[in-house]
């Protein structure tokens, strides 16, 4: 069920009504039922995977928790008797058992994800190698279907079990509540990746109908639909035309396609998240924000703190820090300081961890070399700009322009262009083609295509361009208003007529201007298959 399908709209409308009519203690149970129903729509055969994840994590989290309790009891019982050394040894022995259990769960769950997601990618690479160097024997591909949202729920659930292992919070006692946390349907397809201590605060609570939060939620859903069906799905046509005909569309076309894709991805992804958060809000549930006006970032590093925030946080907490501050890494750092000197030794943990994180982020986004290269290029940009930091500082100190509007705009534009050009890897078929097309931007100055009407042949009409331009202006306006806080709260205090005029314009715009139905290909959310 796509967010933008009629069946999904009917599904949530029914859910909203039932949710607020049944006794409150059944609310979370209804959500669990709805989530599994939603999941079953994608394929009943996939239910096994999500159940396996839920149950394995449930059992292991309790095992780990029991060990926590055992340790506390043992230590308090033998308080006076044990020496410091003995205590430490005991703690370590418990930790070791817990670690084994954790490792076991991570292995199973990431294992499933890896097998489903990367088997065919691996086979393709092996085939390539045997073709080039070996006897040319080819392995056949496996027929694997990726269960809906598996990348998201696996990450979310693994975050949970790691937190339990770290003793951050006690595990959920109720299996069904945990099942709801894993499968909560609005965030299943494309995130955000929630943390248990954060989401559980509102997920299981009994909620009475709150006019304001229902109202705000509906507004946000509508706004999400606007971004998704009016902007993203419309401009997608232009993006597809450009990137699927690389022989025809080169040079400035690549540049145009790159900017189109920047807008498309933003509108699609943030729109989807708006729908997710809006649905949750109607249900009285607070889900963490996933974006913070990312296109206003002044550097790539900042961009990644403001785009797909929950994924970035996940990688930071569960991959970047553990790798960069683990004992072997610290030892390596000390060792290399002795050998290569301070400057290099200090950088080793950060560099290694960054590369690992970005390699993983890349491959998480898609099982192809395009994404691997995309991830590594991201880390390259981040590390290089890190190295340039002192240089920038000197420049800033000398010219004192870093706070001027002009310079900030330059930084913002630079970040957008950098991010957009990296995303070309997401657009073109393979890595060499991507580099080639990137190259044509600097060799083929066919600027005249902007004026000679060629842009009208991309599948977008003049009317489409006008809608897109107006949509862009609206996005920008909303982003600027957001600097002063929630747009909906600011709207709430406006006169009734103005308020309703805005709500209704939005609804009518979605219905009339939406790129849906006959004539438009129904496009899946870009983040759907991950």
């Amino acid at each position, binding site marked *: 069920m796509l967010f933008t399908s009629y069946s999904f709209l009917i599904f949530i409308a029914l859910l909203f009504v039932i949710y607020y009519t049944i006794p409150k203690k059944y609310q979370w149970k209804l959500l669990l039922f709805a989530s599994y129903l939603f999941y079953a729509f994608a394929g009943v055969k996939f239910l096994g995977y999500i159940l396996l994840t839920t149950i394995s994590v449930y059992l292991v989290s309790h095992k780990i928790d029991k060990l926590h309790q055992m340790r506390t009891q043992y230590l308090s019982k033998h308080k006076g008797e044990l020496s410091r050394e003995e205590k430490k040894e005991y703690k370590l022995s418990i930790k070791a058992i817990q670690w084994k259990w954790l490792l076991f769960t991570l292995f199973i769950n990431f294992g499933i994800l890896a097998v489903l997601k990367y088997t065919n990618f691996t086979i393709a690479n092996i085939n390539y190698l045997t073709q080039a160097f070996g006897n040319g024997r080819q392995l056949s591909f496996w027929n694997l279907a990726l269960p809906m949202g598996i990348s998201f729920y696996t990450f979310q659930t693994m975050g949970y079990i790691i937190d339990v292992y770290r003793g951050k919070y006690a595990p959920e006692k109720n299996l069904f509540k945990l099942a709801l946390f894993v499968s909560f349907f609005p965030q299943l397809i494309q995130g955000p990746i929630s943390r248990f201590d954060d989401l559980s605060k509102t997920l299981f609570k009994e909620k009475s109908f709150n006019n304001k939060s229902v109202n705000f939620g509906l507004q946000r859903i509508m706004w999400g639909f606007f971004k998704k069906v009016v902007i993203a799905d419309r401009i997608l046509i232009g993006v597809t035309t450009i990137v699927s005909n690389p022989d025809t569309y080169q040079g400035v076309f690549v540049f145009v396609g790159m900017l189109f894709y920047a807008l498309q991805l933003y509108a699609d992804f943030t729109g989807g998240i708006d729908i997710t958060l809006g649905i949750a809000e109607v249900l009285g549930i607070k889900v963490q924000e996933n974006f913070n006006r990312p296109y206003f970032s002044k550097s790539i590093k900042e961009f990644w703190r403001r785009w797909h925030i929950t994924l970035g946080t996940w990688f930071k907490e569960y991959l970047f820090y553990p790798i960069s501050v683990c004992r072997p890494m610290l030892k390596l750092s000390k060792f290399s300081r002795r050998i290569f000197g301070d400057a290099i030794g200090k950088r080793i943990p950060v560099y290694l961890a960054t590369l690992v994180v970005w390699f993983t982020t890349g491959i998480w986004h898609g099982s192809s070399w395009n994404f691997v290269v995309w991830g590594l290029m991201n880390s390259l940009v981040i590390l290089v700009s890190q190295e340039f930091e002192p240089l920038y500082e000197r420049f800033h100190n000398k010219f004192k322009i870093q706070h001027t509007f002009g310079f900030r705009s330059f930084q913002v534009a630079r970040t957008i262009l950098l991010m957009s050009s990296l995303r070309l890897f997401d657009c073109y078929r393979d890595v060499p083609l991507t580099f080639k097309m990137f190259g044509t931007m600097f060799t083929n100055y066919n600027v005249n295509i902007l004026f000679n009407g060629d842009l009208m042949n991309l599948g977008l009409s003049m*009317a489409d361009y006008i809608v897109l331009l107006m949509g862009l202006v609206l996005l920008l306006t909303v982003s600027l208003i957001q600097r002063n806080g929630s747009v909906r709260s600011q709207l709430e205090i406006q006169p009734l007529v103005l308020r*309703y005029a805005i709500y*209704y314009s939005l609804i*009518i715009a979605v*219905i*009339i201007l939406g*790129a849906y*139905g*006959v004539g438009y290909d129904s496009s899946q959310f870009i983040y759907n298959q991950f």
Partner: protein
Amino acid sequence: MKTKRVLISFVMACLLLGSLFLMERLLMPKYVSGVVEGSLIEEYYSESGKHDVIFIGDCEVYENISPITLWEEYGIASYIRGSAQQLIWQSYYLLEETLKYEKPEVVVFNVLAMKYDQPQNEAYNRMTLDGMKMSPTKLKSINASMLEEESLIDYLFPLLRYHSRWSEVTKSDFQNIFKKEKQFHNGYYMRADVKPVESIPKGRKLPDYQFGDNAYYYLNSMVELCKENDIELILIKAPSLYPYWYDEWEFQMEKYANKHDLQYINFLELIDEVGIDFNTDTYDAGLHLNVAGAEKLSKYFGKILREEYQIVDKRNNYDYVDIWKEKITFYNDIKETQYAEIDKYGSLQSFGGNGE
């Protein structure tokens, strides 16, 4: 305070629904120029008077039979509930619906639609279904007609289907937003221009000539429905040279008519008797008859209706006379206009002709 809030909500809801309704009226295709056939189905509801004969079927009825001729020659009141590429289940449900409004003595069905066993084309579905008034019959017809990628909700709220016409809205969409001029009378689409037949293409070989089960199911239902209502059903194959009518199909229809004791007339075999001349009586080289051909066919068919089905002459019945007088004027006006256009421009300009 509370009543005020309720009142505001009510007014606001009405405003939203009202504006959506207006949008829907504005954006729905009006079929007043170009593909005018899209208006055929809805015009039935503004029709006054009863009919002795109802024709159902595709373009082979609504372009080949002239109810005015049937009236002028025999005093037979008839109506054509035809639409472009009308599929047999759509014909069946249109008949079912028509019987709720009136009870004719004879129903005539053109059998070309037997060749389609499954839903075909969204645009043609729309032309047949959008014009129908909402009823359980319409829902059943939609359900039987939808292609896999279509959804019921698009039919219930056509705005969802036609919203993307916003950039193509013309003056005519505003002019015809609530009410349209009547474009046809009794479901006949007149064309006065001529394009002679030059060659008759042979039918391509088909993998299978057997009509589908689904098609037969609805044909059976149609026979059944007529029997229940004590209506005579006549099956015809209009004298259109193509789509090609295969012998294997002819054989099946003859067999079916025999088995169910129905009259089946294949006018393709009666072209000489009817007097159709494909040099002058068709406007598109044999697919459809023009008004001259339709009048000839109607004269011939009217005789059968009179002699074999004893349909009474209503030309002296005052309930009918005034109504039909107006129709005859309308018919002759259009005919004259079309001939005038052809004289002036060499080809038909309006009424779905080249000019559009």
